[in-house]
């Protein structure tokens, strides 16, 4: 099932941060992880990830560095910093409140009021 683009727009940043919380990753790895961990629900056009990564870097929540891989390729890795951790925590709390409210209305919540 294809998820609405607008719905994805606001969520991708926090998904990226969540993945980077565990380990440093490069762009290709982030795309694959998103796809695999979401059972292909989050299947984005791969090139569109990079402006988001640069946006997060510009916001100062992630940092990047180039690294040579074993296969002889140069990869640009991204890692989360302390500011990113704070943002992730805040966004997760927001999401919990938001999703609870949505579930309550989309579920049987309306009937109870």
């Amino acid at each position: 099932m294809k998820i609405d683009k607008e719905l994805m727009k606001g969520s991708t940043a926090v998904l990226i941060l969540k993945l980077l919380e565990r380990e440093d990753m490069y762009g290709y790895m982030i795309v694959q992880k998103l796809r695999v961990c979401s059972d292909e629900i989050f299947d984005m056009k791969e090139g569109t990830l990079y402006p988001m990564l640069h946006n997060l870097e510009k916001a100062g929540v992630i940092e990047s560095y180039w690294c040579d891989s074993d296969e002889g390729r140069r990869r640009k890795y991204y890692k989360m910093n302390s500011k990113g951790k704070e943002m992730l925590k805040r966004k997760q709390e927001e999401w919990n409140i938001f999703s609870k409210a949505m579930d309550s209305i989309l579920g049987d919540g309306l009937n109870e009021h």
Partner: protein
Amino acid sequence: MNIDEFLDEVCKYVKYKSVHMEIRSELREHIYENIHEWKMSEEEAVTSMGEPEEIGKAFNKNFHLPFNCRYGLCIWAAMVTVFIYLIYPVFAKLFNNTINTGHNNVVILSAISFIMFINVLFLKRGMLKLSFYDTINVTMGFLLGYVISVIVLMVFSKSGYYLYFSDVKIPIEFPYIPLLPINKIVFGLEFFSWWSCIVIYIISARGKEKTKEKTAEVFYVLVQYNNTGFLPVEKEKK
């Protein structure tokens, strides 16, 4: 569409040319990963990246010169120039205790330092690493702004004088330029002061871009310190 065509198309929408190489490297590596990992053809790997226009426009939102191109810089340069000319006698008064002409080196250096400091303070916002094309834009923007501001100032002056206050007139000094007729009044010494600021700024910014190492940072800090007496506002990222 092959890889190079795709990358050209993406970069077409990114006005800030200094970052093109970085964008190309990163996207190219991603496409190669798809080709090797999933055994895709070049065309398939490029298609999986998405629409180049969408990607390019998204990048363009992140990377831009402050004031977004030469016309914005022109307006900024005009504002700064007019402001500098208005406070020029203030500097002269501070150092000479009189309203003087532009012969005093300390006054000129102070004016240069002030211009430099203000420009660097504002132009340093964002990821300003000037490439050759961006340098042209910055230079043309400043030149246009300078010319406009001097024309505006001269409209309100008489016979080639900058009118600061009701009884204070600063004559436009004619700098000696070989082969030009001596009775032609061009611009004042401030013009060359102004140009020296731009040259110094561009050299230091380009030096910073090209080497990206401590030597460029040291040069950049030294230039700023010597010209402004101030250390850089932002700490350099490693």
